[in-house]
């Protein structure tokens, strides 16, 4: 075995105070020291050196030294120097309460921000009166005259007759058809009630054409226009309308009030 180095000699000197592994090491080192004069000599020198600093005389203190220290410490102790001992789980509850507090703060800030934004925008735009804001939209009331209705229907049919597939021309036709539908239905119902078969038949026919025109999806291309004219016999209908206008001028003065977007 090699000779022990200084660290091993120090281990041999102090090792017995440590754990099992250290004590085992010390026993091994002691065995070496028992059989190696050179190492034993070095170890004796170490012991001698350390002995010089072993005999440490500590100044004696009076028997009441503890009481003296207490008399110096007691006035310095704060009245409540530490928190009450926390019950198990208090840390968790404290953490949870902090988290809940933060959540409430964030929610409160969000709510205040929302309200603030609402009032900021309300200040920039004209706010509707409360009753207007919440009241349902009232339909527009329109006074219609049968003669005018027939005039407009005639114009529509003429335009339809001469319309081509240009979207710029057909778009107003659809809007006009929608505008005529409500009045047409009112006058048709009146004619049915009054037993005016000619007027009722003509307006019923017109109703189908107006509905087909108003509800036609997308643009009216050449094929759709042609189909509509053929199916609805637009030319025949135009003739019927013209006859009605000239046939009964008295009736054409009939007035009805309709609600645009609703019924009369």
């Amino acid at each position, binding site marked *: 075995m090699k000779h022990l180095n200084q*660290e091993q000699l*120090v281990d041999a000197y102090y090792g017995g105070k440590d754990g099992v592994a250290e004590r085992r090491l010390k026993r091994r080192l002691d065995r070496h020291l028992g059989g190696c004069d050179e190492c034993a000599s070095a170890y004796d020198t170490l012991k001698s050196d350390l002995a010089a600093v072993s005999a440490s005389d*500590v*100044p004696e203190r009076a028997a009441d030294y503890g009481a003296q*220290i207490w008399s110096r*410490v*007691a006035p310095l102790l*704060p009245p409540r120097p530490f928190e009450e*001992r926390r019950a198990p789980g208090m840390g968790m509850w404290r953490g949870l309460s902090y988290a809940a507090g933060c959540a409430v703060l964030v929610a409160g800030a969000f709510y205040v921000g929302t309200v603030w934004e609402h009032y900021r925008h309300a200040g920039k735009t004209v706010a509707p009166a409360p009753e207007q804001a919440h009241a349902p939209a009232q339909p527009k009331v329109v006074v219609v005259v049968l003669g005018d209705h027939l005039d407009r229907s005639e114009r529509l049919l003429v335009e339809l007759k001469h319309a081509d597939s240009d979207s710029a021309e057909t778009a107003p036709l659809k809007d006009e058809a929608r505008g005529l539908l409500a009045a047409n239905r009112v006058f048709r119902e009146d004619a049915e009630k009054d037993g005016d078969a000619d007027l009722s038949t003509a307006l019923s026919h017109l109703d189908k054409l107006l509905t087909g025109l108003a509800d036609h999806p997308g643009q009216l291309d050449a094929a759709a226009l042609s189909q509509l004219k053929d199916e609805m016999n637009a030319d025949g209908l135009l003739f019927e309308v013209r006859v009605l206008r000239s046939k009964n001028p008295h009736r054409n003065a009939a007035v009805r009030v309709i609600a645009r977007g609703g019924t009369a």
Partner: protein
Amino acid sequence: MGQNERATIQAVLAGDKDAYGALVVRHSRMLFRLAYRMTGNEADADDVVQEAFLRGYQKLASFESRSDFGTWIYRITVHCALDRMQKRRAEAARRVGEEADPELDSVQVADASPDPERLALSAEIGALQELAMRGLTAVERTAFVLRHMEDRSTEEIAEALKVKPNAAKQTVFRAVEKVRQRLVNMKVMA
């Protein structure tokens, strides 16, 4: 830790400040011995003991009842003494180039015996010891005192210094080497 000491600690925690006095009286002398060996100065050792009990009182709520109060306050004292030594060394470093600190330059020895002969011997030993240990850093001196004079294990030293056991062992070894070197130098000078 005995039932009596545990009950005392509970009383202190419950607000009975005077109960802490019993703990102070019981452990003061043991702490003074440690503090003196670490600082090498009576006045500093007294202050360290006082500071340790103050810190202990403030931290008592964190004391685990299953451990020993004596061991706990002992570790606090180690740290108080370390702080004191480092403060002293910092003060001494500031004085370099100015005037020498007579308290640091002189070696304070115990005055325990009325016998003049023994007093002289004790003073000589104390002076030798103090001179031999003067070259150590605060941590090395602490490790050496705990190991060599207080008979503490490597694990206890490691816990007190808040280092790993191997680091504590190395610190002790370094301290031993330095002490021996200084002793050799003193013998040469003598």
